[in-house]
Every structure is written in C-alpha cells, then in structure tokens.
C-alpha cells in the first residue's frame, strides 16, 4: 500500500514551477555561493553544495583514537572547503559516532547538513533508533532522514512524515543503491510526499537517467547520488588510462573530478556524496564543484569516452 498522496502544497507547487522554469537548459539552478557551487532543492527551498560526504566504511573506525583523529581531519577539510551534507546510517557501524566525535571536536554542529537514515524492519523501533543516532551525531535534530534501502518503507516513511509534521526533522526521503528496486522508487516519487531520493548514479551506472531523474526533477524532489566512484572500483579501473585533453575545458584534473563533474552536471542531481579517508581526496572532490561543469553535449562525450576505455 502506498502512502496517501499529498495534496498539492504551496511548497510543492513552487518546486514544480522552479523545475519548469529551469527548462531543459544545462546546468540549471547553479549559483556560486561563498561555499562553492550550490544548487537549490526545489521541494525544500534549501540550497546545498553539490558535493557532500559519505561515511560507509570510511568512518567506521570504532574508538581507535588515531583513526578518529584522521576522520576529524577529513571533516575539517570538508567544512573548510564549504561542504555541508554528511550522510550516514545506523547500518554503518560506528560511523555516526565518528561523525559526532568530529562535529564536537570541530564545533561544527551548526555547519553540517546532517543526513541520516532509518534502518529497521520493525518500524516500532524506528523512533528509538533515530534518537540513538541523533545522540551519536550530537545534533539537536537531523536535517534529512531517509528510509534506508526502502526497508519497511511504508511504515518507516510514515514515522518520518510524522516527525516532520512535528518539526523534529526538516526534510525526509528514501534511498536505494546499485540500481535496485527502481520500480518501487518510481511509485514513491510519484505518490509520496518526500523531499529527497538517494540513488546510485555515476558515469557508468546511468539507469536512473531514464525515468527516475526526470521524474524527481518534475516533482521538485532533490536527488542525492551515492556510490559516485562505485566504492573506488571505478577509479581503480580508470587510473591507468589517460584523461582526455578536453577534460581541461571543465577543469577536471583527475579522474575523480571528471566523474564527479559528470554526476553533478545532471540538472536533477542536487548533490553527490563521495566517501573518503583522505584529506587530499576530500579537497579534490569538493574542488570538482568549482569551475565550469559540462553541458549536455560534453556529458555525452564524457560518457562515451569512459565507455570506450
């Protein structure tokens, strides 16, 4: 059973109008803010930097003091470069506690756009799980809560909708990855009242381009692209290959930047969330949002170049 479709709210109407206004020109709604390139998410009116930070594996370091310090350095560089959205989940081991540790060290709870997930097959446990996550992060409330991998999504989404109505979370959404369950995602995008969808999108995993990205855009729903580097497999695959000369046209100095620029130049994408353990990489990733982004023609060229390798 799907959640009752929402009445057309003023916010959603505005979102739809904004999306319409953006037309098909590439890239739309990009503004240069103090903190690098930002894009507005129509459904929320929120503007977010195009590159965020993931935390799967990379921040799961237990209570190892040396590794906690290393993660704190990554987050310090992330904020210094203007980053805001950090994504985590109760599924990610100690990652939420690591983020909380760094936020406290850096006194950055007011700078982060805190994105977390509800991940339980027993929805009655959802509220206590979310409260434990919030305590781990040490934030007063989450900016975004998502139903992780559509797990028991109808009831978990109902929990999130109730929280949002109470003002206990600002935005809500759903996630999937690896191209899984796109049919269900499509139904939810059409019928449910959500602000964000998180899915896998990169220069080789482009299934979302067919239906989900246009639909999200039409509905004014923000899109968070996960697994930009296929958990580094993509970078390893391309590492030995030369970057094309024309990559300089968009200031892509590395394969990582080439891939990120491809993702964030899609007009439906609000941001992507590469994970990293390295300060150099976080700088490189955030720098990808600065400077020119490819237009539709160049995007096609980028994709076919990678395909040809």
């Amino acid at each position: 059973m799907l959640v009752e479709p929402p009445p057309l709210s003023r916010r959603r109407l505005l979102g739809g109008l904004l999306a319409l206004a953006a037309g098909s020109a590439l890239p739309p709604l990009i503004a240069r803010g103090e903190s690098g390139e930002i894009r507005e998410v129509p459904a929320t009116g929120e503007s977010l930097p195009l590159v965020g930070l993931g935390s799967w594996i990379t921040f799961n370091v237990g209570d190892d003091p040396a590794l906690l310090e290393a993660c704190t350095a990554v987050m310090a560089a992330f904020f210094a470069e203007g980053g805001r959205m950090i994504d985590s989940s109760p599924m990610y081991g100690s990652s939420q506690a690591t983020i909380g540790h760094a936020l406290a060290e850096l006194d950055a709870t007011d700078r982060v756009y805190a994105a977390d997930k509800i991940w339980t097959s027993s929805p009655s446990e959802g509220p206590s799980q979310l409260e434990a996550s919030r305590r781990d992060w040490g934030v007063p409330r989450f900016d975004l809560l998502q139903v992780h991998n559509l797990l028991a999504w109808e009831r978990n989404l109902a929990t999130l909708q109730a929280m949002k109505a109470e003002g206990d979370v600002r935005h809500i959404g759903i996630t999937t990855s690896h191209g899984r369950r796109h049919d269900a995602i499509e139904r939810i995008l059409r019928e449910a009242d959500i602000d964000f969808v998180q899915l896998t999108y990169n220069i080789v995993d482009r299934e979302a381009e067919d239906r989900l990205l246009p639909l999200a855009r039409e509905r004014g729903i923000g899109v968070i692209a996960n697994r930009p580097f296929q958990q580094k497999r993509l970078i390893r695959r391309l590492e030995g290959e030369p970057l094309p000369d024309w990559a300089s046209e968009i200031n892509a100095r590395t394969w990582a930047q080439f891939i990120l620029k491809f993702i964030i130049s899609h007009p439906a994408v609000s941001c992507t969330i590469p994970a990293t353990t390295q300060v150099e990489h976080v700088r490189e990733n955030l720098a990808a949002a600065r400077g020119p982004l490819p237009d539709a023609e160049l995007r096609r060229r980028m994709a076919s170049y990678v395909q040809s390798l």
Partner: protein
Amino acid sequence: MPMSEWWSYHPADFLMFSLHVYERLFVLHNQALWPAQLLALTLGVGLLLALWQPRAGPLRLVVPLLATGWLFVAWAFLWQRYVPINWGIRYVVPLFVLQALLLLVLSQWRGGLVLSPQRLTPRTFGLGLVAYAVFLHPLTALLNDHGLASAEVVGLTPDPLAIATLGLAALARSARRGWALLIIPLLWCLISAATLQLLEAPGAWVPLLAAAIAVVARLMPHG
C-alpha cells in the same frame, strides 16, 4: 527484501570496514593488554604439553583455561572491539559463550575428556594445530603493515583460539565429544576466512586450512 534482489549483491557489499581498521583492532587490543600476551603464550605452551602427554589431572586444568579464553575473547575482543565496527558479530558472541560452556562441561563431566594418543595421524594433526596456534599464528602479523604489534595471540584473539580448540577437538577419543567441540571453532574459522578474503588480507586461507585439517583428523579412526 525480494528474493531476486539478493542476486544483485556482491559479497563485498556486506563488508563494512577496511582492512586497515581491522588490523588496528589487534594493535589496540595488544596495547591495552600488554604484557598479558606473555601469560597467554605461557598458558598456550602449558596446553600443548598437557595435550602431548594427556593425563586426566592436567587436562582437567587446561581445558577450563581454554574455556576462559573463549569467554575472555567473547567479551574483550568481540564485544568491546569488533561489534562496534561489525554489528553482525553480535550474533556470534553467544556462540563463543556456548563454546566455553561446552569445554567446561565436557572436560569435567563423566570422566572428562579422554584423548587418543595412539593414532599417529589425528594426533599429529591435532597437536600440529595447537602448536601452530600458539607459536606460528602470531607471526602472520609480520605479513601486514603493523608487524608484531598486531599479533594475534592465542587466548586473547579469536583465530588462534579457534584453531587451538580445533586441535583439541581433533584429539578427543569420543567422536561425539570431538564433534561437539569442533562445530563452533569451525564456524568461526569459516567466518574469519570469508572476512579476510573479502578484505584481501594475506593469509585468508589459514583458518580455512585449519578447519579442513581438523575435520579430516576428526573423520579418522581414533582407536
């Protein structure tokens, strides 16, 4: 999750921590416990000697010590260190406690544990496993970046503990008691081998080989 979705998963998708973080668990564990490693190694040698020339008295003493090892590792390593980075291990902790109980009960109950020293092959395999766990397994740490600081010492960490217990299980004269003692360490060795393989760690085959040797030894006649 729909059945069809399972096919879209790669085993590596279930891995939620890096090799570096995993190896650091042992470094921190060793730092926190030093110099308990010396005591554990001494007790390991005691276990080997007691199994070499099995007599009821010493055996009744060392097997409960091994049981204590299972309890200690369940608490100090699995629960305190491993569960925070790998929530699946939470479900393994009760098995370690069960193994400790099995060791305690089977070593004291109805004449205790009787080993079969006559048959050469199971004896060699069994004692070989224990000797490997005590003396050689800690040295596998030399293959990684942290060196001996990340050594896995018997009685303090799960792999050598499981391998030593497999050795004991291979030596038991009663097939029933032997198999009862073998199942949980065998399961752990499979989990450990799969984890190390996914982490692309050196020596992923070690726990697998130990498990295979124990099963083969167990299947042989014990006289």
